[in-house]
């Protein structure tokens, strides 16, 4: 199967989208950008390739099978997580061996092994039960599991919490920036075996086995790569394969919602207001300049201030009874204002609602500068996953423009830039322009060329 890869290297996350030659999305992948763009690209692409193989699997599986794709995917992720935990364990062992001046190295080793054993034991419930993972990134899942385990072990033991966490901190960076080739087939077979007990008949088991073999062995030939996003200057892409994120976001949003005329994309440190024509070609745009207050990082900072998860902010703010007026436009000052208002006894939810409104007011100003809001209006980027952000935007659009404007958001909005990049790649392929593979493809994993 031939496919086209679009990669969007954002300041917070890196996304990859795979299209087939007909332009259908066959796989998506996302990872945290780390501080290493090349690794982030390779990991996101790897994720998208896996997702593409799941698309193949889905096509190959008989319709009425007892094992749902969701369960298989969860089992696959579990196997992947267990492999990664194995790597974390090895890295921690390496760190431990380097601590030759510590007298309590053996105690520390025993304690950390106990933490890791606990994480392995809890993993199945985390992925296959109702464990409710709050993130899909290894760093986040393993981090949360390790903290919880370390707290438990430290309570009863001789080794302090900080020392245990210190081991994790030293090991995780190496683990997540190391590119380990992971054979998809082997992982998927393990996942299949794990799910096999859920199938009822031998025939079903055989059908699953065959589908897995097909999905694992089908050759995926990546014929074109196009990169975009904040880090695109440092992307390991040739210049001809790099597109501006403005064009990519406009095009991606227009592909998902063809009625789109205005796009608002709020990412980690960029806010983009984009106007597109009926073909998805950008006609004008504005971006935040000089200051990134009002972007995703603003919410991240507020979440840290409140010791909450980023994903918890929106739902919590939705419980507001009133919207507190937040005056500060600077992120740091807004944090101070938040503390002050909390001290004065204002409800946390109300203040959060005010902070969300404040972000959206900044976005409205940018939108106005780009030429206003026209229907349909598509809201994309990481922040559009936040329900309060969407609600505030909807209110402001009604107040300033019209309540008849159609506002689109999509669960996969975060992928719009990568999708747009892949669509530009598809243009290149169709125009017969020769593709140059990015360097990381040659370095990390063999392309199925």
């Amino acid at each position, binding site marked *: 199967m031939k496919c086209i890869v679009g990669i969007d290297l954002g300041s917070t996350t890196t996304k990859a989208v795979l299209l087939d030659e007909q332009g259908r999305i066959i796989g998506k992948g996302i990872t945290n950008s780390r501080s290493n763009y090349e690794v982030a690209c390779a990991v996101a692409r790897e994720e998208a390739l896996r997702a593409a193989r799941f698309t193949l699997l889905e096509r190959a599986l008989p319709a009425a099978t007892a094992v749902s794709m969701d369960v298989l995917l969860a089992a696959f992720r579990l196997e992947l997580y267990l492999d990664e935990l194995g790597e974390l364990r090895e890295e921690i062992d390496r760190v431990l061996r380097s601590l030759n001046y510590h007298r309590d190295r053996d105690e520390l080793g025993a304690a950390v092994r106990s933490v890791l054993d606990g994480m392995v034991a809890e993993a199945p419930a985390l992925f296959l039960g109702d464990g409710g993972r709050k993130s899909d990134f290894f760093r986040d899942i393993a981090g949360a599991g390790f903290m919880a385990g370390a707290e438990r072990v430290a309570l009863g033991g001789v080794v302090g919490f900080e020392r245990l966490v210190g081991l994790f901190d030293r090991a995780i960076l190496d683990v997540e920036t190391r590119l380990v080739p992971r054979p998809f087939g082997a992982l998927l077979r393990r996942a299949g075996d794990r799910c096999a007990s859920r199938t009822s008949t031998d025939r079903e088991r055989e059908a699953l086995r065959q589908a897995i073999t097909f999905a694992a062995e089908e050759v995926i030939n990546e014929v074109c790569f196009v990169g975009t996003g904040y880090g695109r200057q440092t992307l390991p892409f040739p210049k001809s394969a790099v597109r501006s994120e*403005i064009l990519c976001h406009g095009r991606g949003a227009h592909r998902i919602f063809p009625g789109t005329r205005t796009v608002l994309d709020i990412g980690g440190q960029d806010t983009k207001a984009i106007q597109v024509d009926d*073909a998805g*070609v950008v006609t004008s*745009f504005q*971006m935040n300049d000089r200051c990134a207050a009002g972007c995703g990082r603003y919410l991240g900072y507020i979440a840290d201030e409140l010791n909450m998860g980023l994903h918890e902010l929106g739902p919590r703010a939705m419980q507001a009874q009133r919207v507190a007026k937040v005056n500060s436009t600077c992120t740091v000052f807004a944090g101070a204002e938040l503390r002050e208002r909390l001290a004065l006894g204002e409800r946390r939810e109300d203040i959060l609602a005010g902070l969300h409104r404040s972000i959206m007011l900044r976005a409205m100003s940018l939108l106005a500068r780009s030429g206003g809001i026209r229907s349909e209006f598509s809201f994309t980027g990481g922040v559009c996953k936040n329900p309060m952000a969407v609600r505030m935007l909807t209110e402001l659009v009604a107040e300033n423009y019209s309540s008849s404007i159609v506002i689109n958001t999509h669960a996969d909005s975060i992928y719009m830039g990568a999708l747009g990049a892949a669509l530009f790649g598809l243009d290149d392929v169709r125009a017969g322009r020769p593709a140059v593979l990015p360097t990381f493809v040659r370095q990390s994993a063999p392309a199925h060329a």
Partner: protein
Amino acid sequence: MNIDITTVNSAPRADAEAAKDASQVRQKQMIADHYEQLSRAREDGRKVVYTFVPGNLTELIRSLGLLPVLPEINALQSGMRKLSGNYIAEAEKLGHSEDVCTYVKCDIGMMKSGNVGPTGMRIPEPDLLLLSYTGCFTFMKWFELLREEYKCPVVMLHVPYQGDGEITPAMRDYVVRQLRDVVVPALERVAGHALDMDDLARRLDLSRQAENDLVAVWEAARHRPSPIDGYFGGVYYIGPIFSAFRGTEDAVDYYRLLRTEVEHRIAQKLGPMTPDGPSSEERYRLVVEGPPNWTSFNDFWRMFSREGATVVSSTYTRVGGLYDTGFRHDSRNPFESLADYCLGCYTNLNLPMRTALLERYIREYQADGFLINSVKSCNSFSAGQLLMLRELERRTGVPGGFIESDLVDPRYFGKANIENRVQSYLQMLEARKNKVTA
């Protein structure tokens, strides 16, 4: 505008030397000689007048034997030589706010740091501050500050704004009266002798000759490829005529030489020079509104030149005189033509006039796009720019782009952000071009 070419070409030295045309060498010598004269002004008993680029009355100053100094040019020179950051910090220490025009702060900082000019020689203190243009309100405050510092007289020429889009006889008379009754007497007092009207007329004729050649240079951009860059290259071309040399034989020679070089480029079908040498292809033709950033001038230029974008016309290169709509200095009506010159500077035009001028440039020079570089601390330019952008898009269908930077404050030039916007904008032009041709 820039004067000293060598400070700009930070490209490998061999390239810079190879890239230098005879006109550039000539300009550099003119500048060096001028600063040399300034440094010896006290010993030679010559008097010095500080004045501004828009509405500069160089012929008058020169006819009276006085030497002009242009603080704006010193400020942008400091920007190019990476000195402005420290000068601005110096001015802020004295209490000037972060939001004040950075030319002013840079100038004050330079003054407080010894008043050493771009050639390393000390610039003499002023004998007179000639506030020749009031379209920029900040100019008044600027010279008010300098007056406090130097304890010297200020003479102000109040230039009415073209709010209704025209120069009325009453406006012209008002300026002429001020010239006759206030400005010339003040200059004569400093010079110690009366104005020689014949010498003034001779200088106005010289101005006209240089102006004719400059307009020919601007209009050369109608060719494909354009032999000039009318913004990044253009700021060099305006050097002599916007500063100390209008109405001199030097300026006439310089513009004749420049015009010959440009005509040669047309004949050879050559594109403009860039910081990386001769431009190899013309992929985009742009019109630019707003002043450039000086602290990262070459980086800024390369964002365009390396993408094959040539600026075919710009409005910044009209701040010190708008000649391509027909105005010329006229020796038959010296004061009237000086009045028209002051009243006609680009920033003295109202928004509809500026929009119309940009529209004309977009059409005449067949631009693929137009870009606004908005400088927040320069309200003479920035107020109304977004309105102009929308109106120009509506009238011409040519897409506009918008970026923000600063004149000489290095803190406000975010290279990655600006590059991101410029590239996005150029790719947008490309995508729209493809759509039109598809």
